[in-house]
């Protein structure tokens, strides 16, 4: 029982990072139809930013804020400079994002080599509750994610801006007729999604060392979450992130660990085939190219 509880607790922290990535992907993909595979690289850049700040004597909090702001800025620049030009041809946006992966990875390697980077654990310590070890930093990561998800969720379901965002995901043209500046929302979503990825990167490097190649493994999870949860559906992304995190944790804990990654791939393929709109329903998928 202890072991099972421990597995549940373990799963949460990785699920957190996946959820942070997945929310950005689901919103960007849902709103623009662009499959931004470089979103994982945004996370990597966030982690690297934190690492740079911390290794130059800044605190973790400063590093985290810097990561969020810098990656947000990066998202803004890339949306305005590149992705905006492909809004009418999302498949080109996808190809560009593949090019961006190459550029961003090698840019980091160019200046800071390809070795893995780590920072000292910002908070050390372990709480033990009934035999279950709760690592403090992991708990903090889960807490920060929970707060961010709650804010995002509240903003999207309750605020006027969230309403306009949901409407834009469903039908950009009609939303614009209602006075919603859809283009600005696209930029906003890119910035917000990037900031979440930056945050994810900062939280990730607080837990594990990261390399310039981390993006590709995480982005597949992000897309799995976005597609399983339903495009544009934040609640769906959160649920799917938890499901995927738990599935990872439990299959590693009780199944054949070397097949762990296969489970999420298989689940993603199945959902795409059987429920193309996702388990919790989202947009019918972006318009065809």
């Amino acid at each position: 029982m202890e072991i099972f509880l421990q597995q549940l607790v373990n799963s949460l922290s990785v699920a957190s990072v996946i959820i942070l990535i997945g929310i950005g992907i689901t919103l960007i993909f849902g709103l623009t139809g662009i499959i931004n595979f470089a979103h994982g690289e945004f996370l990597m850049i966030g982690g690297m930013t934190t690492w740079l700040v911390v290794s130059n004597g800044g605190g973790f909090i400063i590093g985290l804020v810097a990561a969020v702001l810098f990656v947000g800025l990066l998202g803004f620049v890339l949306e305005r400079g590149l992705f905006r030009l492909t809004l009418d041809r999302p498949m080109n946006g996808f190809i560009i994002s593949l090019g961006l992966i190459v550029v961003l990875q090698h840019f980091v390697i160019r200046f800071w080599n390809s070795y893995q980077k780590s920072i000292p654990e910002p908070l050390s310590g372990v709480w033990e509750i009934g035999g279950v070890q709760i690592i403090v930093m992991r708990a903090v990561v889960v807490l920060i994610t929970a707060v961010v998800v709650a804010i995002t969720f509240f903003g999207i379901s309750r605020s006027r801006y969230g309403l306009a965002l949901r409407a834009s995901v469903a039908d950009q043209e009609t939303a614009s007729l209602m006075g919603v500046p859809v283009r600005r929302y696209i930029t906003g979503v890119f910035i917000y999604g990037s900031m979440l990825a930056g945050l994810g990167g900062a939280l990730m490097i607080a837990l594990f060392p990261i390399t310039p190649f981390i993006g590709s493994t995480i982005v597949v999870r992000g897309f799995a979450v976005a597609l399983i949860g339903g495009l544009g559906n934040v609640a769906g992304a959160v649920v799917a992130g938890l499901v995927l995190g738990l599935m990872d944790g439990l299959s590693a804990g009780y199944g054949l660990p070397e097949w762990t990654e296969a489970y999420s791939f298989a689940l993603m393929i199945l959902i795409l085939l059987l429920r193309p709109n996702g388990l919790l329903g989202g947009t019918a998928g972006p318009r065809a190219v």
Partner: protein
Amino acid sequence: MKFWQFCAIAGSALFAASAQPAAADDDTIKIGVVAAQTGAFVSAGNTIGAGVTLAVKEINDAGGVKIGGKSRKIQLENRDDRTDVNVAIAAGRELVNDIGVAALYGTESHDFSVSMTKITGPAKVLQFTGNSSLGAILTKESVAPGAPLHYTFQSEPPEFQRSGSTARGVLKLLGKEIGAPLKNAVVFVADDATGQYLSEHYVKALEANGQHVDLIKYPPNTTDFTPLLTRAKGLNPDTVHFWYNGDVTLVAFPQAVQLKVAKGYFLFGVDPGVWADRKLVSTAPVTLSCVPMCWGAPPTPEAKAYFDRYFAAGAVKGVQSSVSLLYYDYMHWYAKAIEESGSTDPDTVVAQIEKMKYQGVVSKAPLYFDNRHRVSFATEVCLVKPNTSDQFECAVEEPPTEPPAGDNGG
């Protein structure tokens, strides 16, 4: 029309430029290195070139290789394989067929090394390469004269030897520190070529030392080990053994300590030097081992002197830095084999190496290749004193001569 004309001209110019045949130079012996200087394997790749470079510099500074009263300098050709098999093969082709090297060092990866042997073999170029997993293809028959792998030499000992000496040393040091008999062990190993290969032997070695062993394979890009570690914890292990990539091991280990998975730990590929450099501290007893020995705690004065020279030359203090020592020794050994046989003819040199015992810096005992072209040397295992980052207790474990029961010897 213009563009195609330009293409044709540019194309033929390009080919003409690249077509210059390599000028034969009788005064030098050409040696090649193919290893990753960029890409995912960079931390392993860099050390190969660094070790060989140091040895070549020493040989040349001493006047070169002496054959029949004449000295020949060594000309070193270093190539980056970019962690890409096609680039590695092309580099191998260039070194072997275009430049005409007499010996090739590298690569760091099992796959690349195997493909490379298909180039070096027919060209009769000596290849010092790869890790213990090459043992899967090196057999008495395949290394015999005229056989495809006659010129291939494995840089690490047979896996049963390394596993055997490591297991014995680890259990000894940990048993003493923990003070209770060690019974249950869990082995963590990457689910890749090297990991799959060596786990077979290490499990057998632990069992031969009276352990009950559970094996857990992790996908190579795992960062969060907690689900696997929690699973391990459920098995109530006394010891947990992390193989084999030092970087990954250092990710997994702190998570294990936080989860209180076992009483003691073993980390392969983490050098005490790295431990000290990064000011790591552990509350639980932990042992480290490196191939072929640890640069953070060199067991002999010769080895210490080597690492001082090595790092003075600007090499990186990484988890795999000590691997350079192997290639350093093989370079010197190769030069010595030429001098002793008085010939650069590959068949003569191979025959010479096969019968030689070479006293290098890798170990106290002389090195030799067995009848499957696998080297033998001891393993150094160090215990980190709990709650310290620079107190180590190290021991050199000699390899077992026979594989344990159920182990095919690798």
